[in-house]
């Protein structure tokens, strides 16, 4: 039996003291015929074991692209990582040769996708797709791999795992399919799990079940979890820290309590104000005026300035605001964060 996990642990540069995952100034662009789309323009965050980091933002703000860049599964071309580092316990993954990089996937960093129906291969049984991980990464026989697959399906609480292991993805319900997806991600005991909108395609009761399952599994294994979502409700429930992304940048990063209590970036503030509230019943909902910028034409200065009520001339000019340290452990990319935090 080959132990790929140990191979990565033996790589030079591995530092047990370094953060579990450290993304620094990540830039990703898509070179298309219609021009260059800057999908990620400086994403920063760190993740500790057992911690849940939520990446929050509207559609098209670069959340999923960031996740794919971390996994190393961007479609290249057209997607290119132009700057930055992604460090797993001190090893810069972007500098690893592909063969080594491949061993990091699923073994150390695994990912759950949004729509499990399209993310699972329709023509292979669930058991085959799970077992494949054990056969290719652990050198197990088909029989052993099948046994492990059944155990896994059991762990993600799929009833009658033994008989369902030979079923195909289309024979599962939406929630059960997402459980299969989770089982697949957790098969090789990764230290980091990236979940890209894991509950968006599910109905509300199933959403709660899946989130609970994820939280339980995370606790059992002390995994770092990156949860990508645009659902503020989910975030408040499970997150330890939040990264708010806008137009490919992390505009604010903070512990969850601080961000809900006192947002330091106008965009975060606007997002929180747009949550419907029971005590505002009958009133019109707050919305953020305008649309996020096209990624091929991101405005100069702070990308949020056309929609921002705090914006002054400084905000409309380059350089864009740097990540100001609001508190230790908390940053915001806004020149006027003091005003924003101070406002009630």
């Amino acid at each position, binding site marked *: 039996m080959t132990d790929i996990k140990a191979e990565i642990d033996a790589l030079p540069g591995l530092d047990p003291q370094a953060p579990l995952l450290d993304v620094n100034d990540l830039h990703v662009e898509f070179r298309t015929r219609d021009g260059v789309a800057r999908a990620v323009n400086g994403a920063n965050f760190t993740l500790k074991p057992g911690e849940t980091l939520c990446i929050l933002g509207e559609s098209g703000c670069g959340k999923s692209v960031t996740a*794919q860049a971390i*996994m190393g*599964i961007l*479609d290249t071309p057209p997607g290119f990582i132009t700057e930055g580092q992604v460090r797993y316990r001190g090893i810069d993954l972007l500098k690893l040769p592909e063969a080594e990089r*491949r*061993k*990091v*996937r*699923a*073994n150390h960093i*695994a*990912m759950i*996708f949004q*729509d499990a129906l*399209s*993310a*699972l*291969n*329709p*023509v*292979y*049984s669930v058991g085959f797709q799970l077992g*494949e*991980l054990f056969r*290719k*990464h652990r050198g197990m026989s088909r029989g052993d791999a099948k046994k492990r697959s059944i155990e896994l399906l059991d762990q993600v609480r799929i009833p009658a795992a033994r008989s369902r292991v030979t079923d*195909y993805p*289309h024979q599962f319900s939406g929630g059960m399919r997402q459980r299969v*997806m989770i089982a*697949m991600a957790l098969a090789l005991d990764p230290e980091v799990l990236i979940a890209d909108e894991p509950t968006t395609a599910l109905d509300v009761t199933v959403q709660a079940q899946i989130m609970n399952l994820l939280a339980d599994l995370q606790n059992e294994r002390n995994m770092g979890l990156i949860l990508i979502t645009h659902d503020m409700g989910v975030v408040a429930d499970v997150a330890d820290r939040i990264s708010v992304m806008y137009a490919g940048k992390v505009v604010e990063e903070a512990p969850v309590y601080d961000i809900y209590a006192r947002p330091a970036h106008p965009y975060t503030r606007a997002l929180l104000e747009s949550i419907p509230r029971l005590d505002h019943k009958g009133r019109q909902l707050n919305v953020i005026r305008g649309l996020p910028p096209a990624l091929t034409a991101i405005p100069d200065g702070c990308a949020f300035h056309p929609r921002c009520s705090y914006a002054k001339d400084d905000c409309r000019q380059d350089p864009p605001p740097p990540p100001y340290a609001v508190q230790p452990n908390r940053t915001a990319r806004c020149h006027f964060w003091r005003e924003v935090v101070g406002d009630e």
Partner: protein
Amino acid sequence: MFRYIVRRLLQMVLTFFGATFLLYALVFANQEDPIQALAGERPITQNVRQVLTERYHLDDPFLTQYWYYMKGLLTGDFGTSLTGRSISDMMAQAWPTTIRLALMAIIIAATVAIVAGVISGIRRGSIFDNVTLVLTLVILSLPIVVLAPLTQLIFGIKLGWFPPTTGADPGFFKLLMPALVLGSLVVATELRVTRTSVAENLRSDYVRTARAKGLSRQRVIGVHVLRNSLIPVITLIGVDIGQLMAGAIVTEQVFNIPGVGFNLFRGIRTEDGPLVVGFVSILVIIFLVVNLLVDLLYAALDPRIRYE
């Protein structure tokens, strides 16, 4: 599954009768003077004309003629050609040759199409992709009436690599050049479908998942992409087998292969009703059987498809 197959086979019986009826009607409507067509330019004595007319019931009304034909057919007798030969004998000689030719053509075409299609689907926009695009366009735009004699002239006569004509009871090597020509009829579409299908599947979500699982590129393509991509190609190949058997008319004529197309061509020219109807009916049956096999294969490849 079993009930599905039985139902399809029963449908086939109906289709067979429908097809023979339609064909018989068409041939009947097309007939002017089959006896004169048989004799060519030579004059025919009244006596001979009368004997032949009686033997083949040429004076009877359409339905009576069809009745005689079906009566023979149901007792396993395909009748006699106007030339006096038993049609069953002619078939026993022609079908094996044509089936061998068509199978060779489809195997060559499918192999080339799938290999080249997968490569150009993976390397979209590469030199290989563009060269195959141009080549397939050239092949696609050359009609077989041009391609067949041209190949015969160049490779059969000028270069002498292959025998220019085939003759009776041909072997593998003798059929190779005709099979290549025949295969070129379908290779272009099969290649383009494979390419599109591979390109499409490469962009799909489950391929991203497979990569996220840390699988090697060979495994992602060879196991995950390939099986999904080949589903539409298999269907196309099935339809093409039928097309190749029917489409062998020109090829068999040019290379002088005594197969189905060769006989059909002669039958149509000499207004030989029983000959044409017999051969085409079997062609219809083969078409249907191949389609049934393709549908069953389809279900084997794609678990989402189940027949009740």
